């Protein structure tokens, strides 16, 4: 039998229900794996006692034949999710030591389905970053290595989640995705990750970055595990006014393996200048796989794609500048005293926020300022509508859209670090999906010349996550991605 930590969630579910092993044995194996992999810096807080006690509850339920959908499945939780009594910091110094007296809706849903928590996962500070190098708790290392042996970034902002899933130190993880923060790290670490439709998962209890773009989603070894996790996470929440009261279907059941007659769009504007040949090649490979499975490629146009990144870097910082105003040293988290209220604010926020967060607060404050609002924020909102309309036009021609997830494989820690624009370009394929509120899935599909994982992205209509799982399952099977880091 394989190591317990090498089983997928679907396999764990079967093994537990057949009593081949206990939830406690699974939890112990993972607790040991977490300890063994501390060099990755994937965790901000480890909660082994909690995981073991939740596993004991799961064993009691399993014994009574009352297993729930995720009974005994140990997960890692991105540190953006508020977890009751467990430190939640968004990887920021300004929240160091903050223990929320409440549980986020998404994590509560997961625990209610029987999952356990191994700890809180490292991330870019306030989810701002594409390399997990902005965390107050230090960068996360990608378990994958380039041939030169250099430490690589796992992508971001859900870098801890991606690294932990890829290294098999959690069975699955939660992520959040504002501009690609689930899909890009999934691509960089050879795992699957889905950003659901905006409004599919509740944002209640998730530290806000950009409210109109943030969405929680699962990251896991394969597409099926994502389907299992998302079903448990999703659902309408009256506490989040933007959560949508639409029933959550059985996503696993959507994975029929049949894509015959399905039309998949290939947006011509995604052939960006300077895209590496191996990305181009992988994309073509994806097209061929789906064609071979009986689906039909259609060329589509998303003409406003080139405006997506600048639009995103106006809207997201604008919302962030306001969302992060509450971290003021008055009620919780860090307070650095000053001689006046204003001085206390300045000291607290200067010391509490890292450079990238400060940069985005400044950008956001600027674009909302009197005299600049119309030229930046209002214009960006208009372009955002046009991007949404591009997709609506595309849906007349196709059922899903296939693109690369990211324009490159994982890069070294320190590379791109002093060029924010180069860093922002990581999200060129993922950002339009957030701006349009659509669901997007990254599927591990191949290896770069350096032997690093590369992902393909599938995009679907609002609330058609089922299509993503169906097509993603077919793509995954064709790609047969079995490579492991360090192997």
């Amino acid at each position, binding site marked *: 039998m394989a190591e317990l930590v090498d089983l997928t969630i679907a396999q764990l579910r079967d093994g537990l229900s057949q009593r081949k092993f206990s939830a406690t044995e699974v939890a112990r194996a993972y607790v040991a794996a977490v300890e063994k992999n501390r060099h990755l810096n994937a965790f901000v807080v480890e909660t082994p006692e909690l995981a073991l006690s939740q596993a004991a509850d799961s064993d009691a339920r399993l014994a009574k034949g009352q297993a729930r959908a995720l009974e005994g499945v140990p997960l890692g939780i991105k540190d953006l999710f508020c977890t009751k009594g467990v430190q939640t910091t968004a990887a920021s110094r300004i*929240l160091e030591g903050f223990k929320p007296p409440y549980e*986020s809706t998404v994590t509560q849903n997961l625990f209610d389905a029987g999952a356990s928590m191994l700890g809180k996962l490292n991330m870019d500070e306030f989810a701002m970053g594409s390399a997990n190098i902005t965390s107050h708790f230090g960068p996360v290392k990608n378990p994958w290595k380039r041939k030169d042996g250099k430490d690589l970034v796992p992508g971001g902002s859900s870098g801890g989640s991606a690294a932990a899933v890829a290294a098999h130190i959690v069975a699955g993880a939660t992520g959040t995705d504002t501009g690609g923060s689930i899909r890009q790290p999934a691509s960089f670490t050879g795992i699957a990750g889905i950003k659901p439709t905006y409004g599919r998962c509740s944002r209640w209890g998730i530290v806000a970055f950009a409210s109109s773009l943030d969405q929680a989603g699962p990251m896991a070894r394969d597409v099926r595990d994502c389907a299992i996790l998302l079903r448990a996470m999703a659902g309408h929440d009256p506490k989040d006014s933007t959560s949508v009261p639409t029933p959550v279907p059985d996503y696993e059941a959507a994975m029929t393996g049949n894509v015959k007659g399905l039309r998949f769009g290939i947006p011509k504007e995604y052939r960006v200048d300077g895209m590496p040949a191996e990305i181009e090649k992988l994309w073509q490979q994806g097209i061929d796989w789906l064609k071979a499975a009986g689906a039909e490629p259609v060329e589509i146009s998303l003409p406003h794609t080139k405006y997506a990144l600048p639009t995103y870097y106006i809207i997201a910082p604008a919302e962030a500048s306001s969302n992060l105003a509450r971290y003021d040293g008055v*009620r919780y988290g860090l307070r650095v005293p000053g001689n006046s209220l204003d001085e206390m604010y300045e000291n607290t926020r200067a010391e509490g926020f890292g450079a990238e967060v400060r940069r985005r607060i400044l950008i956001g404050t600027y674009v909302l300022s009197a005299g600049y609002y119309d030229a930046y924020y209002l214009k960006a909102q208009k372009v955002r509508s046009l991007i949404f309309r591009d997709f609506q036009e595309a849906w007349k021609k196709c059922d899903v859209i296939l693109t690369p997830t990211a324009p490159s494989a994982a890069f070294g820690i320190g590379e791109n670090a002093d060029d924010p624009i180069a860093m922002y370009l990581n999200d060129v394929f993922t950002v339009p999906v957030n701006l349009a509120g659509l669901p997007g899935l990254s599927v591990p599909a191949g290896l770069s010349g350096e032997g690093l994982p590369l992902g393909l992205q599938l995009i679907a209509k609002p609330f058609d996550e089922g299509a993503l799982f169906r097509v993603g399952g077919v793509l995954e099977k064709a790609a047969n991605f079995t490579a492991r880091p360090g192997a």
Partner: protein
Amino acid sequence: MILEGKTGKWEIVVGLEVHAQVVSKAKLFSGASATYGGNPNAQVSFVDAAFPGMLPVINGFVVEQAIKTGLGIEATVNEVSVFDRKNYFYADLPQGYQISQYTRPIVSGGKLVLDMPGGATKTVGVTRLHLEQDAGKSMHDQSPSKSYIDLNRSGVALMEIVSEPDIRSPEEAGAYLKKLRAILRYLGTCDGNMEEGSMRCDANVSVRKVGDTKFGTRNEIKNVNSIRFVMQAIEYEATRQVEVLEDGGTIVQETRLWDTARGVTRPMRSKEHAHDYRYFPDPDLLPLVLDPKAIARIKGEMPELPDAKKVRFVEQYKLTPYDAGVLVAEQEQADFFETVAKGRKDPKLAANWVIVELFGALNKKGVGVANSPVSAANLAGLLDLIENDTISGRIAKDVFQIMVETGGDAASIVKEKGLTQVTDTGAIDAAIAKVMAENEAKVAEYRAGKVTLFGWFVGQVMKSTGGKANPAKVNEILKAKLAG
């Protein structure tokens, strides 16, 4: 009001911004209690304290209250309105922004009809009404080195009601606030209590030469906590502006505070930095879309408002517009009057008693109708006794005094004190016969033509009956007997 300056006549121009706390059990975007007077920070949810990851959810009841108020000021209720964030840092503003409505308020374009002395009316436009969150309260006087923050008020729903600059005198400003408060109270959408701060007023004041069509530069006077002070502050500020202008100075647009103790306005300590509120639509909230059917339903449930009630009182009870205006100024007064007047032959008698005797007594005691020692039913009982000739109007006033002191009912007091009016002609006959027998000389004088003695005879008869004889009957019988 026209101010006489050294250089000519000046006109006062005023616009009022009223912050009215919405009557609601819960806050605008959280389930925490919105009631007044709780222990500090006892009524605060994680949303109100802006904990990480907390989200606002609109309170549907508050929205209905705003719709009701909009309909009450004959305004347009907008089917789509938008909540915006007004960003600024302050210690009692936990989110770092106030959720308000900026470009698209829930209500726009209403009006108020003011009742001016002498029965005249004046219409003042209402530009808009929007919903917004209140901030918490900073207390700087609790410690020498620290400020304390009470977040009970944080997130409480306010309606900001903005008038057009149509007001031309302190009296009109007072009448505007009274009328608005009356409508809010009739609707039950704000208790209108300025002392507790559930209704607050900022006044924008400017002056211009009579005949000018352009407005002068205005100053905003903040948070004046009574109607009387609003009127005083406007008068002071307008006079001050005229003096500045006539001395060759200019008015600088600024925010001023009313200093109650000294009776002057003075500039607020200028903030270190000018505010740029960076308004933008709150991405945590969808646009507020109202169902026209819900608006129609609320319209159907609207109570009768002061203006309509006044018209009805004039028609139904034949009251003067002035008396009707006095009675409808507060719903409790109007209801009290209607209870007393119901089914009465002479409703004007009821109006007189309520306005003159009751309000006079309440004024003396310093209480409102709600706490009147004389209930409407008891006052009606007293008027019944007058109307069925059990007591005279004069005795009724004595009985009323006892009712005010004891809270008792008229019939019991009359019975207990033996004040029942004598209408029994036999008893009156006897009293008259006695008076005439004891004053034969006077009877003779009367009969000889000195008819002015009649009043003296009436007085003697009344005296001998202890004032209880029915004066009309006494008159009638006495006239007959004296005639011989």
